[in-house]
Structures are given as structure tokens and as C-alpha cells.
């Protein structure tokens, strides 16, 4: 995952050198691409051990609410992404020479919201595609398709942070939209998980 993130950032860095795109713009795109692909990697094996021995049924029977399983998996995935970003974010910032005057608390909040949004969809879809022959590739395609509207506020928030001077208005608007997307995604996925898990049983 870390190698993938560095590779993505490096490719974007090369592209930035040969194109007239500002470093903050391409840095925010590189960081988002790294987080997105890492979220897919984190989530794709999420339900593999449950699928192998019918453990999902055991979890459903043992838990008071099937949605609890989803929230537990989501928490693990967000934590895994946060750990990965401890290396990926500084790598991107160093590669694109973005450091002076950066607001770290705002960056952390934005990345945390992006993690929650990406993981919420990827966790649900990982359960849905588990057991299908093309699970891995299908997960990537579906996650990217569903998450595409969320990319706009995510890029907007990161771009406003990386730009010098940063634009608080763009950041706040992006953050508000990210919050809205997270609330919708997590609630809808939590409610849908019962049906998706039942679908796995069928």
C-alpha cells in the first residue's frame, strides 16, 4: 500500500514537471488517488475470512444488530487508512514541496473525512462482491463509480489547503460537502448492510 502510494505520487510528480499544472493541484490529485487505491486494497479482503467458512453467518447470529458488523469493519478500515497515511501524506508533501504555512489540523480533519467516506462505500461493496469470481476488479470499478461525486469536494478541500495562501472559503465549503457525503454514505451503507449480508447468505 505504501509502495503504491509513493509510486502514484511519483508518477503525478513526473506528470507535473512536464505539464503546466500547479503543484498544489496535482499534489491533491495524487494524494486522493493514493488514498482511493489504498482504500480498495484495504477493503478487498475485508470479508474474505468470513466468506471462507461461513463466518458471516456466525457473526450475524452472535451480534445484536447486523449493522454492528458493518460499523466494526468500517472502524478497522478507517484506522488502517490513517496508519497508511502517516507515511503517504508526508511523502506527497515532500515530493511536491508543499509544507510552508500548511494547516495540519485542517489537513487531518479533511483526510479523516475522506477516509470515512471512501471506506464506508468500499466496506459495503466489499461485502457485496465477496465470493464473486471477479471480486477484486469489480470492487475497484464500483467504488470509483459510486465515489466520483465525492471527489469534487475532496479535491476542493485539499487544493485550498495546499494553495498558498490557502483559501478558507473553499476549504470550508469542501469540508461541509465532505461531511454531508460522509453522513449520507455511512447511514445508507449501515442500513443497507443487512440486505447485502442477507444477499451473501442467499
Amino acid at each position: 500500500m505504501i509502495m503504491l502510494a509513493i509510486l502514484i505520487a511519483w508518477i503525478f510528480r513526473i506528470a507535473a514537471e512536464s505539464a503546466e499544472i500547479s503543484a498544489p493541484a496535482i499534489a491533491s490529485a495524487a494524494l486522493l488517488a493514493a488514498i482511493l487505491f489504498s482504500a480498495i486494497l484495504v477493503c478487498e479482503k475485508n470479508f474474505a475470512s468470513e466468506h471462507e467458512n461461513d463466518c458471516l453467518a456466525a457473526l450475524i447470529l452472535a451480534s445484536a444488530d447486523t449493522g454492528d458488523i458493518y460499523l466494526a469493519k468500517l472502524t478497522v478500515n478507517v484506522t488502517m487508512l490513517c496508519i497508511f497515511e502517516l507515511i503517504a501524506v508526508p511523502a506527497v508533501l515532500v515530493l511536491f514541496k508543499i509544507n510552508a504555512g500548511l494547516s495540519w489540523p485542517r489537513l487531518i480533519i479533511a483526510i479523516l473525512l475522506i477516509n470515512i467516506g471512501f471506506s464506508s462505500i468500499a466496506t459495503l461493496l466489499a461485502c457485496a462482491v465477496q465470493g464473486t469470481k471477479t471480486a477484486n476488479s469489480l470492487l475497484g470499478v464500483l467504488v470509483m463509480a459510486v465515489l466520483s461525486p465525492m471527489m469534487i469536494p475532496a479535491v476542493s478541500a485539499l487544493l485550498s489547503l495546499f494553495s498558498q495562501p490557502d483559501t478558507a472559503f473553499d476549504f470550508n465549503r469542501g469540508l461541509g460537502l465532505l461531511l454531508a457525503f460522509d453522513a449520507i454514505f455511512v447511514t445508507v451503507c449501515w442500513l443497507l448492510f443487512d440486505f447485502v449480508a442477507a444477499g451473501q447468505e442467499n
Partner: protein
Amino acid sequence: MTEKPQKNPGQTPALNVAGVCKSFANRAVLDNVSFQLFSGQALCIFGANAAGKTTLIRIIAGLMPPDDGTIEICGLNLCSQNPQAKKMLGFISHKTMTYPHLTVEENLRFFARLYGLNKSNTRVEELLDKTGLILYCYDLASALSRGMTQRLTIARAMLHRPAILLADEPFTALDAPACENLLALLQQFRNEGGAVVITTNNVSPSLRCCEKLAVLNNRKLFSDIKADQINLEKFC
């Protein structure tokens, strides 16, 4: 012809299945399946492959919604009072339902925590002892033989002291000693007041542990079958 619910005003049935129907893509699998089971009783449901046995038992376990009909566990509706009703069920699938990368003890402790057991350590040790897994408690679940795996599956299903044990094809791939052990564990569970539902196409061990027999055939459940009415050639 399905069984009509028997009136027994003095006792709430441990399991009451009433008018359950299920179909997949317009292919009916279960049609108006009804039966009752009281504490301490054991019911064996026979059926050929693809008769709908697994579908029926997974519906009873609450893992699959029925198209129609109701299921009551000790008087609690499985649909509307799901969490309380689920806690009264133990489920043994023909898959192990345990994590292969965890040891026997870790698997039991994990599920004990999920069930929110107060004295989970005591209960885990009690079950390890009862199922004869105490010598294997530090072995990975994936390293166990089929018989030992089945013991672990039973221990997991009994962790929370369920009122009903549902067993889907529990005798599959077990040798004679493992079958004997499983029968002894099921008998012990019944002696403690538990009700057992087994689905199988393995006739001989099932006849030894269940006094109630039923056959699932052509989408219908035929109850109160006598042992000599079971067509051995069809199921063996």
C-alpha cells in the same frame, strides 16, 4: 401435507414454524411449511439433495427471510424481536463457521465476547472440557481434523446456552467415532432441556438421536413420519 400446529396450552413451543414459504427466482423451494418443537425434543428433517433443507434451516436461524410465514423462538417472533430471538439459537452449518487463522480457544473467546457472556472464560473452559477439545485448545482451527472441527463448531454454537440447536448436515464427512461423539453431545444438550433440529440425508445416526422425523419433499414438509417409512434408498 404439512403438520397442523398441536395445541399445548401448558407449554410455549421452543420453536414454532408456521406457513413458511420461500422461492428463488419464481422457483418455489418451500411451500407452507409448519411444525412445532418443544424443549427437550429433537426433530430430524430428511430430504434428498436440493430438497430445500438448508434453505429451511437458514430461514429458521434468521439468516434468510421467508417470503411468507412466521417463526417463533420460545414465543418471540424472529422478525420483530430479532435480537432476543437470535440469542436463543445455536447454529451448526456444514461449514465450520470458525476463523481458520485463530486457535480453538481464540475462536471460542472471540464468539463469547460477541455474545456478551459475563463469565466467558469459565464458559469457554467448560465447553473445551465437555467437547474434548482441551488438548487442542492452542491448535489453529485450520489444523483440526474434520471430527475435531465439528466439535469446535458445536462448542461455538453452544457458547451462549441456546434453547434450540439447529444443525445442518452435521454428520457429513464424519467417521463412526466422530458421529458417536456428536450424538453424545446432542443428547447431552437435549438432557439439559434444549431442542434440536437436524437436517440430513444420513438416516442411521439421525434415527438414533431424534424421536420426531419429517421428510421435506417436493416443497412440502411431511411430519410425524415413522422410522420404517423412511425410504433408505432415497436418502443414503
